[in-house]
């Protein structure tokens, strides 16, 4: 069961709401790449890519793509006025130096301490970590966008990650097709639920303890 475009955009829109004026933000491949479509015009933000772009603009019109201008996922992009190119060491220099206010990325598993697993399924799929370790370890805020459960219906939010970790204790916020969950010192805090799901649905689909916020926000479809 994949996520329909509506679910994807719902999640991307919610992630976009985390972005405030002046932020420097890195977007992973997949659902995170939809985030810019949901940003209000008045928000000025600098999108960063590991392959050496500071200031990514909207996707180009079909037919106007530039083969030499792609994001870290290899998809054609544009550059905003005031943007610039650099080599990968400088792009990662920005990351390690702590200049990234937020990274929004996908995950295979997240646990209640905010550990992130997103680079390997032993014996099955070994894509490699790419820049995920650096982004997860060094960004001021790490937002995960992922399905709440895997294709077998198993929760991707667990007490302990069964998959090898990308980076421990790095995730701040989890946005799934069901809910928005914050990683706090006291564990996971369920803050928002997407209609038509209920708090009980979320608890049922989550493989670890959830604290329920005092005022859970309800997102109507």
């Amino acid at each position, binding site marked *: 069961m994949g996520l329909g475009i509506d679910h994807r955009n719902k999640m991307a829109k919610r992630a976009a709401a985390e972005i405030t004026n002046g932020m420097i933000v890195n977007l992973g*491949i*997949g659902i995170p790449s939809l985030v810019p479509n949901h940003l209000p015009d008045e928000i000025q933000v600098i999108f960063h*890519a*590991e*392959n*050496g*772009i500071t200031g990514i603009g909207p996707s180009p019109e079909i037919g106007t*793509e*530039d*083969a*030499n*201008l*792609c*994001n*870290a*996922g*290899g*998809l*054609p992009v544009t*550059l905003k006025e005031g943007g610039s*190119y*650099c*080599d*990968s*060491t400088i*792009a*990662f*220099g920005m*990351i*390690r130096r702590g200049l990234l206010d937020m990274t929004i990325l996908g995950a295979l598993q997240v646990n209640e301490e905010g550990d992130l697993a997103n680079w*390997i399924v032993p014996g099955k*799929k*070994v*894509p*490699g*970590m*790419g*820049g995920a*370790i*650096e982004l997860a*370890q060094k960004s001021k805020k790490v937002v995960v966008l992922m399905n709440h459960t895997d294709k077998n219906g198993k929760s991707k939010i667990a007490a302990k990650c069964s998959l*090898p*970790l*990308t*980076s*421990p204790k790095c995730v701040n916020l989890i946005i799934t097709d069901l809910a928005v969950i914050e990683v706090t010192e006291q564990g996971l805090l369920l803050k928002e639920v997407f209609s038509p799901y209920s708090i009980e649905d979320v608890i049922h689909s989550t493989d670890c303890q959830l604290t329920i916020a005092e005022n859970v926000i309800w997102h109507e479809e």
Partner: protein
Amino acid sequence: MVKPFNKKTSFDKIKHLFTNEMTIMYGGFGGIGTPPGLIDVILDSGAENLHLIGNDTGFPDIGIGKIVCAGRAKSIITSHIGSNPVAGQLMTEGKLDIEFSPQGILAERIRAGGVGIPAILSDIGTENSFIANHKPKVKLENTEYLIETALTADISIVYAKQADPYGNLIYDKSARNTNPLVAMAGEITIAEVEEIVPVGKLHPDQIVTPGVFVDYIVVSEGVNWKWVWE
């Protein structure tokens, strides 16, 4: 380092440089910026059991992916193979030895090789056993760091927008990516470029790779990358 003052040559004339068992480092990120003509020259050369170093394994038909899929690589140091399923398959079959390095650290290791620094210390992935386990470590003021050693290659291949006959290079947009780093780290560096311009045409403030790092220049017959990552 070969040092004629006119470094322009042809694909044919450099084919003999590629030999079995050598280490080849390639510029590019997701195939974009990996010199397509030089990849074909390596294939033509027949060189095998190659040791590769580069950001990722490209796609099966783009970038370094073609070398990997032809079974010419014995090992690779890289950060990502997700866009080339054949790389993962060869690894699983024990036919390709892969060392994964965090992407930015890999870039720094290549740069370190290029500027003659033996290694860097890193706090990236210190708690990730796949990264940290086999690496030397050192403690500095009570924090343990990984020692990430410099990488160099027998031959570096890069893609650039323009070169002058001295080998000065400038790059185009995000096709720059790892190319300026790789350009410094080869014992021999070969640049495939869109265009060779006369000496003096490149503005000296705008040159990204000074020609002293470059040995050969070949003119590209065009790039073959496209947008198919996902």
